[in-house]
């Protein structure tokens, strides 16, 4: 089984628009939305939810004031300043480490597990989709990404599919690491701006750090052809495969507004470039 993860470093370069087109073009695959704290793929794939489950993440301390003697042991030991002088736990500051729970001399602190979000298995016009929604201001986004990936793999096995396509989050931190470690291939979608190039270098180093074969494409390449060339040079120098240039095309936004993937919506330049891009990515996945 192959796993293709699409990431970008910088946000807003067009990952999800490209992934939606891949969903339309690829056969026999499971789609997974690994951007759990700002998931957008469902807006285009219009999932019909078949299965829904709570995501249980970490725990949060809760002080029972009927038992608490206000001795101050918990406040002193908490490394996160999460307990106020009136012995109320700040849910946002609490990391769920359980140190206060363990050391409370009168066992006044409860430690319930949080429901941090939901995850879903859905059917779409392009086949199955595993997606999730992290609760607002919740932690453990990496854990939820891992769960979505695992479920997508299980589903692919059940259906006899050989491919999982994962729409990854921006950045290089915890959820990106969860979406990329162990993937067969990473596709970086970038844009020809200094920010795009800067962020590509960092996320490219991350993929290299995990030794994952990396493909690069430039979206809106004609915005700055010079930087597009610099990106292509950077790719070559660092053993990454340059697989496509997609021109700026207002049809991308129009397709999004219509709730369609670009390749369903348009036969224009950008749609054509995305088709060619998928052809190259598909060839690479066969290796």
């Amino acid at each position, binding site marked *: 089984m192959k796993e293709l993860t699409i990431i970008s470093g910088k946000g807003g370069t067009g990952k999800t628009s490209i992934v939606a087109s891949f969903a339309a073009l690829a056969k026999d695959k499971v789609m997974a939305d690994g951007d759990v704290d700002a998931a957008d793929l469902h807006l285009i794939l219009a999932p019909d939810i078949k299965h829904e489950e709570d995501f249980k993440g970490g725990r949060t301390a809760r002080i029972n004031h009927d038992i608490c003697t206000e001795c101050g042991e918990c406040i002193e030991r908490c490394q996160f300043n999460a307990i106020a002088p009136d012995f109320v736990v700040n849910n946002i500051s609490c990391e769920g480490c359980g140190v206060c729970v363990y050391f409370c001399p009168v066992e006044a602190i409860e430690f319930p597990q949080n429901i941090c979000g939901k995850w879903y298995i859905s059917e779409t016009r392009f086949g199955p989709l595993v997606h999730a929604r992290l609760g607002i201001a919740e932690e453990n986004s990496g854990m939820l990404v891992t769960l979505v990936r695992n479920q997508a793999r299980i589903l692919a096995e059940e259906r006899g599919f050989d491919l999982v396509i994962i729409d990854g989050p921006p950045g290089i*931190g915890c*959820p990106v690491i969860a979406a990329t470690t162990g993937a067969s291939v990473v596709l970086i979608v970038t844009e020809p701006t200094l920010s795009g190039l800067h962020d590509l270098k960092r996320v490219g180093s991350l993929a290299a750090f995990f030794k994952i074969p990396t493909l690069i494409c430039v979206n809106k390449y004609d915005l700055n052809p010079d930087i597009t060339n610099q990106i292509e040079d950077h790719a070559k120098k660092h053993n990454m495969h340059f697989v496509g240039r997609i021109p700026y095309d207002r049809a991308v936004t129009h397709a999004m507004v219509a709730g369609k993937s670009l390749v369903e919506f348009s036969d224009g330049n950008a749609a054509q470039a995305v088709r060619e891009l998928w052809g190259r990515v598909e060839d690479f996945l066969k290796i």
Partner: protein
Amino acid sequence: MIISIASGKGGTGKTTIATNLAVSLADQKEKVQFLDCDVEEPNAHLFLKPEIYETKKINALVPKVDKDKCDFCGKCAEICQFSAIAVIGNTVLTFPELCHSCKGCVMVCPKDAITDTERELGVLEKGRAGDIEFIHGRLRIGEAMSPPLIKAVKETIKPNHIAIIDAPPGTSCPVITALRGSDFTILVTEPTPFGLNDLILAVEAVRVLGIPFGIVINRSDVGDSRVVEYAHQEGIPILLEITDQRKIAEAYSKGIMMTEVFPEWKEKFQQLYQQIKQREL
């Protein structure tokens, strides 16, 4: 006053708004601090071009086990909620990348066999960009945990300054860490279905934090009218709209600020600040 700039969706123009606001305010002789809290992918330095005068490593405390003192009782593994320490037979394994620095294992060890050592999270850099005090964090490649580095960047905030925080995209812990304690948050969005979906999530996040906020709509003439309708419905002020202009996008691609291409925009960013100040009073 602390003003943070966030978005939910990436690439909507957070850094553009944050950097142009900072420059426009510095132009009026305001004391401005700029804090790039998008430590995974910091970009503001590409536009403000600060001269960096100080670089400091930021570390997290992780456990170190003295094998001679350890009797493999397993209490450390039991208290650790993050599976960052494990006892298997006569071996103690630590997984520093999973450690949250709660010191539970250090406190619980009956043999005092565990002490603190450090894992590098990244670096904090300080510099000057004209009259602006510039601070950003750069997360080490391969490091998963950004909130402690974001906290370190925010610890440099000075009173009697306008502190402008450029937040990371999304709505999870790094964003919450960046936004907490702000006096006002500007949510930057674009009028597309993705922009709206992620704006709604970001609005929920700032509401959880109890921070007053308003919206800036970037590329306001693309997409559809649903963001504006949503803002009206929710009674959220639209502070500024910027149309989609090739000239702005091209300048951005080269690291040139909007206010350099269109100096008249400085006044609009100054007005943006006045609107925020009035809402705060």
